[in-house]
């Protein structure tokens, strides 16, 4: 479970998050929406332990950030719009390297890497250098990297950025089948601008506006068409609806 209480983050005198309160239950898929600059990425970086909150409290699986950051990091898998991979290494070398960093036991490492490559459909390209991969293949490998250590929480930071229609559809499939997000196996937070995909995957939606949670609710309580309207009203956009 993720608990965020009165979270404030300022850069200099500029407040990005102005007191965010949020609770994400175990197995929940939260789509985190908001316009550019609303603080989505900052929020995710705080959850990852890459940025420190100015004030407030963040608990992940009962551990507090940034005090118990090692325990938190063991539980996190991150997929970002950046690949977080090494171009000059092969797919297999990349996964082996991260398996060592995440202390996947040496005896299981090879099998785990092979299984992950198979699950994301890259087993035939295991020995290929990442430089030769398409954007979609890189993103599939990024998912394999994020799931290597079997994290309980998956953070997805605009994972669809730069993907074509086919690659995005494949990512949908991987999130559902490989990452097990629909079965509630993992707790997932995804930032995205794609409202359709947010509705498709998420069990809950949070809309960040002017550094605060402007809307929070389950997707089951709305229709596909309602989400854009709720979004526009929350962020104060002009709407044609």
């Amino acid at each position: 479970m993720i608990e965020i209480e009165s979270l404030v983050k300022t850069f200099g005198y500029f407040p990005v998050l102005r007191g965010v309160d949020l609770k994400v239950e175990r197995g929940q898929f939260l789509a985190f929406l908001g316009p550019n600059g609303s603080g989505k990425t900052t929020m995710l970086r705080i959850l990852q332990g890459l940025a420190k909150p100015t004030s407030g409290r963040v608990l992940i699986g009962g551990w507090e950030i940034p005090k118990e950051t090692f325990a938190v990091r063991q539980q996190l898998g991150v997929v970002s719009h950046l690949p977080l991979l090494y171009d000059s290494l092969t797919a297999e070398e990349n996964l082996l390297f991260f398996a060592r960093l995440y202390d996947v036991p040496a005896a299981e490492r090879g099998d785990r890497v092979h299984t992950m490559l198979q699950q994301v459909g890259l087993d035939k390209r295991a020995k290929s250098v990442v430089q030769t991969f398409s954007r979609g293949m890189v993103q599939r490998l990024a998912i394999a990297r994020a799931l290597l250590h079997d994290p309980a929480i998956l953070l997805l930071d605009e994972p669809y950025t730069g993907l074509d229609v086919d690659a995005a559809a494949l990512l949908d499939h991987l999130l559902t089948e490989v990452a097990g997000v629909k079965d509630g196996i993992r707790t997932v937070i995804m930032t995205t601008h794609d409202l359709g995909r947010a509705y498709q995957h998420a069990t809950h939606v949070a809309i960040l506006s002017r550094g605060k949670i402007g809307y929070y609710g389950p997707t089951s309580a709305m229709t596909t068409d309602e989400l854009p309207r709720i979004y526009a009203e929350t962020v104060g956009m002009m709407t044609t609806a």
Partner: protein
Amino acid sequence: MSATTTTPETTSTTQPKKRRLRTPYFQVVASLAWKDLRAEARGREMVNAMLLFSIMAVLIFSFALELDRQAQEATVGGVLWVTIAFAGTLGLGRSLAAEKDKGSLDALLLAPVERSALFYGKMIGNFLFTLAVGFLLVFLLTVLFNVNLFRPVLWLIIVLGCLGFATTGTLVASMSVHARAREMLLPILLLPVILPIIISATRASTALLTELKTEDWLPWIQLLVVVDFVFLLAGFFLFDFIVEE
């Protein structure tokens, strides 16, 4: 380092696995150094640039300074260390910038590892690349300056000097990597900090090559050892703060 275990939230429905709270220290250092060497062995972007720069710099020095035998012996130590410093700076900038640009620096910082282990892992890679430049320069300068640099004590000075340079350089490059004009910022920040290393390495090399007595070069080597040790310790304590956002 720590072998403390924890039972994190898992995806498993069975008994949760006991995991170490953080990855063993030397496993991280070795993995990161291996990764850098493997990536460089395949791409050769950094080492090729450093070696080419070194060859060009030494050729320019050799043709620009038309010196007699005695002057060559007195100058070659300076040429060696100036070239190592500039070629090394070129490599350092690339080493950290590559991590930052692909987001892989974040991937490293996300892992449950001691940050200082990341520092030593990066430092080892940078040290070996700088050392490769140093050893190439020994061959080049021996030929172009007609001074025998194949002396065990000089090799020791090169190892110590490159170690100090890589340690300091990795630390400073980690600071400048977040800046917008990092290519310009790195030499401006680095060169004043590495002065004690360059001065002691140059003095020790020159004293050795001009056949001065042991007491003329030994104190400089001792100073080099002390400076290396101080920067190695500084990396351990400061890296966490440097990479903190």
